[in-house]
């Protein structure tokens, strides 16, 4: 990495890659930090929708940067221009780098042509947060929805992205579904590409 941080030896300093993304911190450290993010924002708002919007904003900033980093590092300098390509990039590459595994599933919405869903049985950010009863349907996954929107938007696929709890038969805990609704222009372009 450029600037601060330890410098590895490269024949030409300009060819030094941008961190391999292999460094790690403890999950607890991230959990503590994330929990502070949620608590700080909770004080700033007076309703759940606003809290989710602020978490989504924070996630968006992360997603925009993750896209730049991963495209340069993982994609071998090819541009992603197809809808399914960018979705599978998020479902596999982005998920693996950020959460250590590919997402449990990527599905197309059955009712609407412009909707896709990425689902996760236990989304990382929901693993360590227990939501007080009075916060109703609040979902920390709004942060991850923001990451997804940040990636999509900056790759030229504007979309509305939201996080939802979905009950699973026989399971105590609901899974989280990230619902992606693409802007009309995206589907039109996709149709043109054939």
């Amino acid at each position, binding site marked *: 990495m450029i600037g601060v941080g330890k410098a590895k030896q490269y024949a030409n300093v*300009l*060819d030094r890659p*941008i961190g391999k993304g292999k460094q790690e911190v403890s999950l607890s450290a991230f959990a503590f930090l994330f929990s502070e993010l949620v608590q700080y924002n909770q004080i700033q708002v007076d309703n759940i929708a606003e809290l989710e919007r602020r978490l989504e904003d924070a996630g968006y900033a992360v997603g925009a940067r993750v*896209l730049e980093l991963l*495209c*340069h590092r993982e994609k071998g*300098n090819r541009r992603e221009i197809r809808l399914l390509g960018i979705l599978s990039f998020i479902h596999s590459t982005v998920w693996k780098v950020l959460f250590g595994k590919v997402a449990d599933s990527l599905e197309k919405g059955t009712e609407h042509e412009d909707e896709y869903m990425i689902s996760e049985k236990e989304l990382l950010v929901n693993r360590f947060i227990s939501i007080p009863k009075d916060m109703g349907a609040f979902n920390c996954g709004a942060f991850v929805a923001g990451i997804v929107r940040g990636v999509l938007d900056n*790759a030229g696929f504007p979309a509305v992205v939201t996080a939802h709890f979905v009950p699973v038969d026989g399971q105590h805990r609901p899974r989280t579904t990230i619902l992606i609704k693409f802007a009309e222009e995206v589907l039109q372009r996709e149709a043109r590409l054939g």
Partner: protein
Amino acid sequence: MIVCVAVVGHQNNPLYIQSFTKADDSLKLHHIVHCSLDVVDERVNNPKKSGLIINETFLGLLNPTENYKVYGYLTNTKVKFILVTTDLEVRDADARVFFGRFHTAYVNAVSNPFHIPGKKITSRKFAERVSTIVKSFGLSSSS
């Protein structure tokens, strides 16, 4: 010799532009960069006609003029990098090496939490790095 490099946002808004000449020709160079943007759009929108591999970031030589060669590069985030050189014998390989390094510097700059996506790149480190990359142009394409 590289005389100008530019980073241009997806709405053709300049994010960074720097000329490297002693002469007072930055206006002319900015104009060349500006004109090359249309060529980029043309290429990307008509990939078949221009024989471009549809999703390669390196766009190759854009518009040779009498005194300059202009190369382009398009990132996944629809950001364009433009390189203007007076070296008419320049090889594509050198341009590729240049853009690879430039892209790394760019990614570092936009990963800074203080950079706002879509806004001008004001990082001093980026400027320093770009000037180093420009100086090394064509010297070591052996990688």
